């Protein structure tokens, strides 16, 4: 019944309703959309940390940024590193296991179903990173002419796709990682070798002076050693010979720093926005209560106490707020969800949209922040309003 009265009452205050809707919508949209964005990156970074686990990555010196942009942003690149480093690294102190990977950028040409996809050849027998993900999804490693694709490639399990002039059976789709792997496709070294054996595709898995070229080597560390110490050991031993080792932690640390900076910027703007919103809401509420003073006065004169009045007014504004938050959430979702891939490509960081639970929490937070602003505005305005004698609320010149 109150809601019905409130709805009717709001119907007669179209200007105030429009003004508050605009203020609440702007604020809610910024908080919600900004929250989706930062949480998307946080989730992407968290997922990256979890997926990469602890360990090291060894790449040709000077290619660390290329590898990072491939891993985190999905930018395709081709990197060459002698495969002999695999054995060399295995002999270094503290190294438990090594697993090579070959990164090949696909071409947007007749040979390939899609360009810009990062093809990753790996060794299912020695791998201790990627296989774990496939095992979790109960996808067996790719055999000859089989491929496992990332979530954002657009391919589906069971379909046949063409890369480098060869038909591949899509064996499975890796669930969303928020990392570069979402736009990657995984093949075995056997398949890479078979492609390279054909005319015109030798660069897929080339040999230089009889040595096969890989792109990077994943390294795991023996118990009793830390990633940092083994990393330092490898860099001191081989740093001058053209390779560099990085702990996954140090690579992710850069991300964490970028994320922290981004969050600070968003938080700063959120605070500024909420302050501006508070002033605007306070002004509109004050103005509106003054406009309604004769109606409020009449209710007081027939026994409606101030706490009831405040509650009614708050509930009316809450209806506006609820409508604004609903519209802003809908707009935010419509704006961000369909363009997840575009956003990911623009921000140079891992990105994975929050799940339903996180999104609900974010909606709750958006509503809560705005409701708090509204409550404070109503309380302050109401208090200054009701500090006066009841007769003076209606008119100052009561004599």
């Amino acid at each position, binding site marked *: 019944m109150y809601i019905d009265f409130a709805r009717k009452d709001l119907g007669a205050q179209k200007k105030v309703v429009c003004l508050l809707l605009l203020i609440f919508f702007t604020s809610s949209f910024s908080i919600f959309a900004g929250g989706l964005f930062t949480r998307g990156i946080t989730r992407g970074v968290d997922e990256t940390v979890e997926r990469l686990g602890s360990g090291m990555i060894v790449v040709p010196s000077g290619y660390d940024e290329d590898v990072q942009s491939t891993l985190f942003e999905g930018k395709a690149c081709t990197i060459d590193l002698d495969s002999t480093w695999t054995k060399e690294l295995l002999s270094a102190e503290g190294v438990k296991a090594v697993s090579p990977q070959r990164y090949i950028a696909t071409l947007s040409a007749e040979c390939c179903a899609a360009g810009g996809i990062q093809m990753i050849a790996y060794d299912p027998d020695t791998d201790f990173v990627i296989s774990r993900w496939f095992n979790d999804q109960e996808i067996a490693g790719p055999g000859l002419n089989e491929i496992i694709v990332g979530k954002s490639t657009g391919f589906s399990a069971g379909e046949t796709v063409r890369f480098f002039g060869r038909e591949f059976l899509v064996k499975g789709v890796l669930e969303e990682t928020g990392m570069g792997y979402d736009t990657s496709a995984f093949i075995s070294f056997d398949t890479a070798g078979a492609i390279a054996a054909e005319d015109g595709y030798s660069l897929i898995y080339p040999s230089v002076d009889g040595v096969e070229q890989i792109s990077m080597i994943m390294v795991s560390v023996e118990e009793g050693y830390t990633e940092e110490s083994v990393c330092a050991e490898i860099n001191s031993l081989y740093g001058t010979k053209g390779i560099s080792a990085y702990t996954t932690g140090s690579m992710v640390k850069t991300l964490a720093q970028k994320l922290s900076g981004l969050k600070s910027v968003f938080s700063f703007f959120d605070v500024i926005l909420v302050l501006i919103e508070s002033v605007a809401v306070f002004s509109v509420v004050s103005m509106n209560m003054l406009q309604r003073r004769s109606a409020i006065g*009449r209710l007081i004169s*027939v*026994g409606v106490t101030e706490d009831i009045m405040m509650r009614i007014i708050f509930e009316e504004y809450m209806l506006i707020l609820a409508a604004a938050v609903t519209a802003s959430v809908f707009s935010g979702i419509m704006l961000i969800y369909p363009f997840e891939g575009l956003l990911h490509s623009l921000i140079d960081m891992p990105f994975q949209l929050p799940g339903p639970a996180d999104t609900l929490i974010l909606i709750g937070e958006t509503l809560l922040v705005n409701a708090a602003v509204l409550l404070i505005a109503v309380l302050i305005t109401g208090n200054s309003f009701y500090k006066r004698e009841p007769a003076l609320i209606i008119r100052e010149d009561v004599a």
Partner: protein
Amino acid sequence: MIIQAEGIEKDFTREGLKDISFRIVPGSFTLITGESGSGKTTLLNIAGGMLHPDRGRVFVDGRDLYRDYTRKERIRLLGSDLGYMMQGVSLIPSLTVKDNITYPLVLTGREYDNEKLEEILNQLGIYEVRDSYPGRISGGEYRRALLAGVLLSEPKILFCDEPTSNLDSDSAAVVTDMLYSYVNPDRSVVVATHDTAFDRADAHVELRRIPVNGIGINAD
């Protein structure tokens, strides 16, 4: 219910109330008259619990209205034992006349008798406009709707501030008759007015304009 006002004083910039005392007893009709600016509304506000006097006291059945009652209790009293048809108040434009009358009771969790409501609407001649919105009724109907809202809670003491102002003669007659007929052994009415249509009263407080710093009593 008895209201006893003793030595009421209120200072305003230009005029004020000086040492006003009166008593409202059950079954009485009290008139407060005086020229504009003499303090009729102020006196009614003070007696009705809406405005603190600067000096003096108002007792409701022996309890000091401004010392023994909290602000909230005073407002609650207005919706039950006391009723006040104020000037300068308005109906909520988005609610029908009927909803405007019943809304305060709904808000405060009080029951109302629908038959009683219809009787009041009929007596005041606004039954036909009960489902109309305030913007679509005449000024006279509007004032009568305000009065109906006060009458529905059947207060023991009814205060009315200029209840017939801006009313045509027919509407004024309806309101005047209604107020006179409201009085019974348990109920009393206090009207502040300069309308001579109120020609009968059990008690009469006449106010004169006096300067705030002047000396004298402004009530006869």
